[in-house]
């Protein structure tokens, strides 16, 4: 049968960001796929070498517009490791609070886009309606809906008072009422199952060999999560990763849908156990030596590496982002699928090209 090769993306209605897939099809079946990236490289790593290291927090926060806080947190933690700074307990708990808010709104954004990808538009709107509540919590506590800018080297910049905590608890209760029916739809709806069940299979051993991270590998049955290392306050909060055994798009979707609940519980736990005390320690020195830090983003594990020589500017900052690790899995998931399933399978790894290219 004749083969047809055509581009899918970089501008496509289901793709939130520019990644191009060169698809080769036989009739309606995909036989070969080549992902192509490089449409939005911004040179952030080089930019970080030119700024004073304290100003880089705001630049690293803009590597990704969705998981911005976790980038800032990972950057601060790697600098703190290089300088040997001990962060106060309250700051560590507050970092978990904002990081989990980021994860909640990122997953809800993705669940909405995914619902839109398989054609359930009213579910897309419901997800984004619930997400709006999470963004309100973020604005109430940090002053901004998405770019929180609350993390600094040595701790955090903002504190929660008793009044705010009461309001946040009330809003989290409202969120539970909104999200419960949405979660049940994702879990049980026949239409969703028919579009996602058995689509884009990533076998357990292949997921490990390809170095997949985040919900992509947890959907293939591996309990692999950087939060298990216990950075920030995760070690004290008794964190356990969400794992699904299905290895398909449905399993990856359910990992994210269940992680919204997990984040909701973690935020409640943080508010219950928030220790009193300082929220940051003064930092006067410059980083000297090198350090590496792993953190868990909504899309998977991010790795930060830094090297300093005692001057205010870093000599090198390297960021390995989760979508970069997850893109090769498309080479396994897409060949053999129907052309109509390509958007759903591509979206199931939650590709974030702004992260990937930085």
């Amino acid at each position, binding site marked *: 049968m004749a083969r047809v090769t055509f581009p899918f993306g970089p501008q496509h209605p289901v793709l939130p960001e520019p990644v191009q897939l060169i698809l080769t099809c036989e009739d309606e079946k995909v036989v070969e796929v080549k992902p192509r990236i490089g449409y939005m490289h911004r040179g952030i790593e080089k930019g970080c070498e030119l*700024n004073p290291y304290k*100003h880089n*927090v*705001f*630049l690293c926060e803009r590597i990704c517009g969705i998981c911005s806080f976790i980038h800032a947190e990972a950057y601060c933690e790697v600098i703190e490791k290089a300088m040997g700074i001990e962060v106060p307990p309250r700051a560590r708990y507050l970092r978990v609070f904002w990081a989990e808010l980021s994860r909640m709104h990122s997953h809800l954004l993705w669940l909405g886009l995914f619902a839109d990808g398989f054609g*359930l538009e*009213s*579910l897309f709107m*419901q997800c984004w*309606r619930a997400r709006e509540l999470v963004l*309100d919590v973020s*604005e*109430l506590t940090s*002053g*901004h809906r998405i*770019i929180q*800018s609350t993390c600094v080297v040595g701790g955090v*910049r903002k504190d929660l008072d008793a009044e705010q905590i009461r309001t946040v608890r009330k809003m989290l209760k409202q969120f539970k009422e909104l999200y419960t*029916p*949405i979660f*049940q*739809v994702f879990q*049980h*709806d026949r239409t969703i199952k028919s579009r996602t069940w058995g689509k884009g299979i990533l076998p357990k051993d292949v997921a490990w060999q390809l170095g997949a991270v985040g919900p992509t590998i947890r959907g293939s049955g591996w309990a692999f999560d950087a939060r298990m290392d216990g950075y920030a306050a995760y070690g004290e909060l008794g964190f356990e990763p969400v794992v699904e055994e299905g290895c398909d798009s449905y399993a990856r979707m359910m990992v994210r849908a269940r992680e919204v609940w997990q984040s909701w519980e973690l935020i409640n736990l943080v508010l219950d156990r928030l220790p009193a005390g300082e929220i940051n320690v003064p930092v006067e020195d410059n980083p000297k030596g090198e350090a590496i830090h792993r953190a868990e983003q909504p899309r998977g594990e991010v790795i930060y590496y830094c090297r300093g020589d005692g001057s205010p500017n870093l000599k090198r900052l390297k960021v390995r982002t989760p979508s970069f690790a997850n893109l090769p899995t498309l080479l396994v998931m897409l060949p053999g699928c129907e052309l109509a399933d390509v958007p759903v399978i591509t979206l199931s790894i939650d590709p974030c090209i702004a992260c990937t290219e930085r």
Partner: protein
Amino acid sequence: MGMLGVVLRNLFTGPVTRRYPSERREYFDGSRGRLVFHPEYCEFCGECERACPTGAIELDTAWDTRRQDYSIVWLRRYNPFKCIFCGNCVEACPYGAIELAEEPAVPRYRKEISVDEIPNWQWTEWVAS
């Protein structure tokens, strides 16, 4: 069936969206919106310029073209299109000359840099003598 229940409930609870330009949402206390500068409190110390991560604030001097005696004016240039509204300058200012308003900056037709003259640092007679 689950989705049908959600949709039916929404039919009877009214819209959750706003008619935007006429009806605006209320901002929370401490929202980081527009940057407001009070030149009368400014002492020209330069803390805000050093704290700004994007270089949106510049302190500078210039010849006062309104006068004939080669006097100098002290200026603060602020580029709202470079500003990321992080609030570093607000925290750094020891005199309370900068604050963040809750409502966000409005879109503009032209990329104009706002220039403020610092009144505390004017050309005075004792400097001339």
